[in-house]
């Protein structure tokens, strides 16, 4: 561990490489986390199937590329197909659990995640899949720092999607309806908003964002049917830190988490990377509950 730490100081470009790559990885987490924050805030559902939606998005790009579609065109395709898949999932399962106890929705989405894992395994096999976007990498500082173009693209896209989402929620009619529904579904219904449609659109939008994240993941790394959980955990973590109503905080938390965990993986060893994410989450939750308790005691 100490040699790893000293390595960072001995070779400053290495430190730069680790942090930069972490930020780029974080962009993909942020993309998946936007959707989770939306669904959590609007439908009051913790979407445990989030990671599986990401993996499905990756498979769609993979299959499209097998059929001769250029990898980059797979990105909007994954989003579009996943939008429809999200709508279907909402109509089949999610609308039944929207008003229920949060525990029921967690169980339902957890069940969905197992179903999708097994279906993906049955259809695509357990092999590790990857798509080569052939975009290459950018090297600088004597080749010590590598930035893969796909990850850069993910970064730009995550920022772009964040801005678009912010604009959409603020200005667009449906975006305003989504915000109104999130604030008070009953009042929104009374004012003539078709909340069921808003819920469906929100969930489908979430799936579309996951589809884009998955498409980037399969181009930047690899996917296999059981890869969903790490994405679910990170999205959850990002939303816990950023809160459900703030697009800017989600991207900041996503990038921060990516950089932090990459540094932790480098210094502590990769085997502790996920442990670090969990530990961080526990610390943040404890800190939050202490802060909340203090606020409560002021009020009393």
């Amino acid at each position, binding site marked *: 561990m100490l040699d790893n730490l000293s390595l960072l100081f001995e070779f400053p470009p290495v430190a730069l490489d680790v942090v930069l*790559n972490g930020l780029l990885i974080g962009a993909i987490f942020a993309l998946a986390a936007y959707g989770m924050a939306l669904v959590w805030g609007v439908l009051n559902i913790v979407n445990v199937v989030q990671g599986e939606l990401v993996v499905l998005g990756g498979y769609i790009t993979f299959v499209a590329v097998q059929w001769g579609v250029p990898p980059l065109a797979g990105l909007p395709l994954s989003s579009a197909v996943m939008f429809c898949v999200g709508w279907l999932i909402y109509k089949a399962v999610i609308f039944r659990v929207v008003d229920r106890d949060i525990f029921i929705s967690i169980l339902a989405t957890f069940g969905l995640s197992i179903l999708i894992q097994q279906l993906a395994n049955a259809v695509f096999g357990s092999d590790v899949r990857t798509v080569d976007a052939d975009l290459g990498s950018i090297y600088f500082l004597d080749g*010590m720092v590598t930035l893969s173009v796909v990850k850069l693209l993910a970064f730009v896209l995550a920022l772009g999607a964040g801005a678009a989402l912010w604009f959409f929620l603020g200005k667009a009619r449906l975006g305003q309806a989504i915000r109104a529904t999130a604030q008070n579904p009953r009042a929104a219904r009374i004012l003539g908003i078709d909340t069921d449609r808003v819920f469906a659109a929100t969930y489908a939008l979430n799936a579309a964002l996951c589809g884009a994240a998955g498409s980037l993941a399969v181009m930047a790394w690899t996917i296999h049917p059981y*890869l969903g959980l790490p994405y679910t955990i990170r999205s959850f973590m990002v939303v816990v830190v950023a809160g459900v109503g703030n697009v800017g905080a989600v991207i900041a938390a996503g990038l921060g988490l990516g950089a932090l965990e*990459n540094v932790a993986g480098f210094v502590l060893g990769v085997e502790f*990377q996920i442990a670090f994410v969990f530990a961080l989450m526990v610390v943040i939750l404890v800190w939050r509950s202490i802060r909340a308790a203090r606020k409560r005691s002021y009020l009393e």
Partner: protein
Amino acid sequence: MRSVVTGLALLLVAAFGGAASAEETGVIKLGAAVSLTGKYSSNGQFTKNGYDLAAKLINEAGGVKVGDKSYRIEIIYYDDESTPARGAQLVERLIQQDGVKFLLGPYSSGLTEAIAPVTEKYGVPMVEANGAAVSLFRKGYRYLFAVLSTTDQYLRAAVDLAAALNEDPSKLRVAMAFENDPFSQDVREGVLEDIVKHGMKVVVDDKLPPELNDMSATLTKAKALRPDLLLISGHDKGAALAVRQMADQRVNVPMVALTHCDSAQVAEKFGAAAEYVLCAAQWASTLKYEDALFGSASDYAALYEATYNHVAPYQAAESSAAVQVFADAFERAGTLEPDAVRDALSQTDMQTFYGPIKFDETGKNVSKPTVLFQIQDGKYVVVYPREFAEGELRWPTPPWSER
């Protein structure tokens, strides 16, 4: 009406009686719980294909002769869903409910480890072909036999090769990354022994998590420290990620050795990025082994490909060999009594297309070496051991800027 019924009944009796007298051969039931769903489903399918192919050929060649009666081999399969608990449960069911007296192994060391106590309890001999963890053979199991080389042997060849190529092996610096699972940690243990023997220095020693999705932390270290040898083992996804990210990050190491690159199909999927990589494997279709049933190793590969429409992976080859070992033991035992068969198994000393098979007292096959491929011009070329080498080792790997 009644006469019609009697007539039908008579006909049925005649038909069945006729069938019974026409078929004089008996049936030996072998049982196997293999992973047809879950994370091992592709390798589980290879295992099943291997078993099926051997059983088919043995039956076509007249079956197994035990005493003076011949028997057909039949295999009962269950899907263990890649989970150890389910595997153990299914084996119990095979033995208790289906009356199976002989078992073929599952896929992976973890599942074999879960099943072995059960077969041991009932005294049911098991010949397995896909559980190579060293720990399996340290528990004193009497009914467990494995046709493959143990895991600790996998990458030792690469360390030996590196030592042989360099004048002073003690100056060599090694970077390694192994997944944190029994298989890969066994590989690490074996490699470490040889590293210590040669006095080499370990500069990176990472444990990769099972949910591994990014190897850049390890590779960045390797890039900064410039080791002479890089060893990575993390099943299919480890091999795929290593090849992909080494090319992405332009990590220059003179020698890189991996496990599972053939089952991950790195040469097919990554093309030029996979060149020069060394891959440890149990078997290769170019090896000069042969037997009476399948012919040579390449005959086996051709037959397998014609039957299943994909290249024969070593997981299938070793599975076929396991069935051959059973057939051979049945014939030598001259009876189907489990303990007699177990004793016959322990005396096994045979040549197969998969390699020589001879068990030591712990049940592992000690007479077959592991091989190293190198990916050369998109092909898997055997470069080690020397007596089987098809091509010269290409070493050192040129830096990315010159490739």
